């Protein structure tokens, strides 16, 4: 099992390579360059700037240089924020983004699985049915709608949590953003879990477990839970990645100094190294999430484990 995991990790490298290469060339396809937005510059100054950042070299040379620097762990300078290196910018905001992302992911999984399992176990319960239907709203409404609404209700009308900005260590600032981020995935997971468990509860081996006279609790948790999680786990890989990379929305809505804003802003500014850095970070996060989901899948279903 360990060998299998290691092999999968090594297998990530080619995919990352493809990702980096693809991104590198695609963003340069866009019209415009990094220095267009500033005041109109004289051609001479433009030429100097381009040369200073190596932008006058042929594309392949730039690519080669970038890869070389990458291997040494150097993400390059930001073209927009000229006093900073890319890793400094990202490093400043990344811890916060990851915290929010991971907290939201954990919340979504725990609440979703628990709610879904209960709803399948007690199909008659009106409360549960109502909750699951309500969760539909969570699936449909985008974060940038839910965020402001929650801020309105819990930040302004009933000021329970703090909104707008962030003070290190003050968890109160993070509650609403985390809930906003977790909501769509929690809702989706709950429904998926409920449907999956409903199917599992109809299967022959659950009938056998009941025929053995096992208490209902044991049947649910020991026999039904793991197979029910299988389709959920397949979804979790992309879902957790979605949450972690999607933190940029709640950061924007709640004014949190995370690293998310660098991605879009960097693309608009044509700040190539910054965008590449963000893509790399997000790419790694996504691939790691998918990998973990795959490994978890193997634990849930002995049939897919390498013999």
């Amino acid at each position, binding site marked *: 099992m360990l060998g299998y995991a290691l092999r999968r990790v090594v297998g990530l490298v080619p995919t990352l390579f493809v990702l980096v290469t693809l991104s590198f060339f695609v*963003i340069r396809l*866009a019209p415009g360059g990094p220095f267009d937005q500033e005041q109109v510059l004289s051609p001479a100054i433009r030429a100097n700037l381009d040369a200073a950042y190596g932008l006058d070299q042929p594309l392949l040379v730039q690519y080669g240089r970038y890869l070389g620097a990458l291997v040494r762990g150097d993400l390059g300078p930001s073209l927009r924020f000229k006093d900073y290196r890319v890793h400094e910018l990202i490093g400043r905001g990344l811890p916060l983004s990851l915290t929010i992302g991971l907290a939201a992911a954990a919340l979504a999984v725990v609440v979703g699985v628990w709610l879904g399992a209960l709803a399948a176990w007690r199909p008659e319960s009106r409360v549960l049915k109502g909750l699951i239907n309500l969760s539909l709203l969570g699936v449909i409404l985008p974060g940038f709608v839910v965020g402001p609404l929650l801020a309105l209700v819990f930040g302004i009308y009933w000021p329970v949590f703090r909104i707008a900005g962030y003070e290190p260590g003050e968890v109160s600032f993070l509650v609403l953003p985390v809930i906003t981020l977790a909501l769509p995935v929690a809702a989706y997971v709950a429904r998926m879990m409920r449907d999956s468990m409903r199917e599992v509860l109809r299967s022959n081996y659950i009938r056998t477990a009941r025929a053995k006279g096992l208490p209902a609790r044991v049947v649910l948790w020991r026999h039904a839970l793991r197979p029910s999680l299988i389709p959920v786990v397949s979804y979790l890989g*992309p879902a957790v990645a979605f949450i972690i990379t999607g933190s*940029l929305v709640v950061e924007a809505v709640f004014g949190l100094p995370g690293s998310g804003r660098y*991605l879009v802003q960097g*693309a608009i500014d*044509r700040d190539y190294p910054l965008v590449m850095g963000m893509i790399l970070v997000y790419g790694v996060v996504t*691939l790691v999430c998918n990998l973990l989901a795959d490994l978890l899948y193997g634990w849930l279903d002995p049939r897919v484990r390498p013999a």
Partner: protein
Amino acid sequence: MTPRIRFPLLVLGLLAAIALAAPWFSSWSHDAIDWQHQAVPPQFEAGHWLGTDRLGRDLFARGMQALRVSLALGVLATLISVFIGVTWGAVAGFAGGRVDAAMMRFVDIVYALPYVFIVIILSTLLPRGSLAALFLAIGAVGWLTMARIVRGQTLSLRHREFVQAAIASGVRVPGILWRHIVPNVSGTVIAYATLTIPQVILFESFLSFLGLGVQEPFASLGSLINEGAQEMESSPWMLLVPAGLLTAMLLAFNALGEGLRARLGPGDE
């Protein structure tokens, strides 16, 4: 048609009808500025049934225009997704073996890319404000799930005895695809297409929120929500109107899709 299908269909029909007819019975156009009534809440006098925004533009007119854009976008982009997705999935599922593995690997890789990455690509490549390019770009990404679903269904149909029997009866491959595979996946395709529409609309709203979607003076529900969120403390209707429209439309599409899926989806035979 069960009530689960009829009801959402009715709601959608109503919304679409109002949105399409709005230019005829609203006194304001979507970009006309009413200097006397800037940022006013919903009222009857000046004909601003849903209020105005910060610049004095009628929110009903803007909302309806945004609705038109979203509906058109949703339906057209979904049609593109369906076309590409069904073809890709059916070919992969039917061919099997290496062809299938290669085709689905491609889908997996694109699927695994963080969707924000896709956003970046779109944002950098699209000439700003071009609606057509927007449709195309969104449709080109939405086919992935459809391809997966169709491929899964085709794969299981491929080895069913009635397909084998058709081959044994001398039916050629195009005949099998057309007479056996397509009719048996069409139910699922319709159901999932209806569920794709709200996802497309959401995606465009997200782009607008980032400033990348529909450009001024046109509005989409996403850009209206973005503007409204900025004013929400002083003028909550500026947020609630577009949010309400978006919610209603998405709920209706989802309900319709779920209803169709219950009726037509896999496992219904």
